[in-house]
């Protein structure tokens, strides 16, 4: 079962998200009101470790466990899409108080009500799929 490792990594990720309190609506409010360093510290230190890791992987040409070269594909830069989509996501993030990862974690921790924003997020993605070609990116 080659996907088992992703379930294992997911479990660890979920536990860390709970213990970080990044899944808390209250923490997201605190962040958007600039009244605590907590969320900035989490995102900032995660990016710091990420940058260092990518540098090390590139410099020492580190391979995957199965010996393949590591693929790093940068996301395309879409001025309008990144910004407009970003603003829309930000509006939703502050309102629901959770981005996709935390939505899943909250569901797991027993907040069954979170199924409502999850279902409407699914609808949002379907609508995007329908109108994608009409949007400027």
């Amino acid at each position, binding site marked *: 079962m080659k996907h088992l490792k992703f379930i294992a990594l997911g479990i660890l990720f979920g536990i*860390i998200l709970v213990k970080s309190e990044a899944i808390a609506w209250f923490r997201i409010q605190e962040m958007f009101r600039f009244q605590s360093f907590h969320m900035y*510290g989490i995102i900032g*230190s995660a990016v710091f470790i990420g940058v260092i890791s990518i540098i090390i992987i590139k410099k020492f040409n580190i391979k995957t466990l199965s010996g393949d070269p590591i693929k790093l594909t940068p*996301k395309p830069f879409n001025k309008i899409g*990144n910004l407009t989509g970003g603003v829309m*996501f930000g509006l939703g*993030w502050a309102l629901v108080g959770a981005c996709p990862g935390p939505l899943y974690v909250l569901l797991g921790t027993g907040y069954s*009500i979170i199924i409502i924003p999850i279902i409407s997020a699914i609808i949002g993605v379907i609508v995007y799929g*329908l109108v994608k070609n009409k949007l400027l990116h």
Partner: protein
Amino acid sequence: MIDLINQPWPWYVSGPLIGLFIPLLLIIGNKQLGLSSSIKHICAVCLPVKKIPFFNYDSKKEAWNLFLVVGIILGGVVTNYVVDLNYEVLINETTKAELKQIGLTDFKGFIPSELYNWSTTLPNIVLMVIGGFLVGFGTRYANGCTSGHAIMGLSLLNVGSLVAVIGFFIGGLIMTHVLFPLIF
């Protein structure tokens, strides 16, 4: 040790641990961290949407992402089983006072129970629906979310990810400072 399990972790513990998932996912699975695309894969795998070109791709190749999501949900289940999560997140007192002004009194748990629970009012359900829709539509339009853009994308020094993150904050600040006072 008991404290480590029971107490929330400070940012300088949890942040670097989250960051470590970038090399972990790359080295173990040759995958880039990103969670919002899972919503697209849920559509492609579970719903009859293959006629829409956006969903007509080889979703088997992306199955790993859904397994990661299953794990993340299980991570929540496990933590909830081991630790009492119905505690009050110790946010800044100013934030708490400002949230009291918009009518919140119950600060226990991770989400405000007065706004979001099954016995809430219809307007609050509508807010959840709108918020979820914006999260779904916005992540696809921006091509990523907090994990894919803010953490993975910034780690790769992607310009588009920086633009998206700026967008996240513009949206979040508008919602918090302009729309919240009008809604609540």
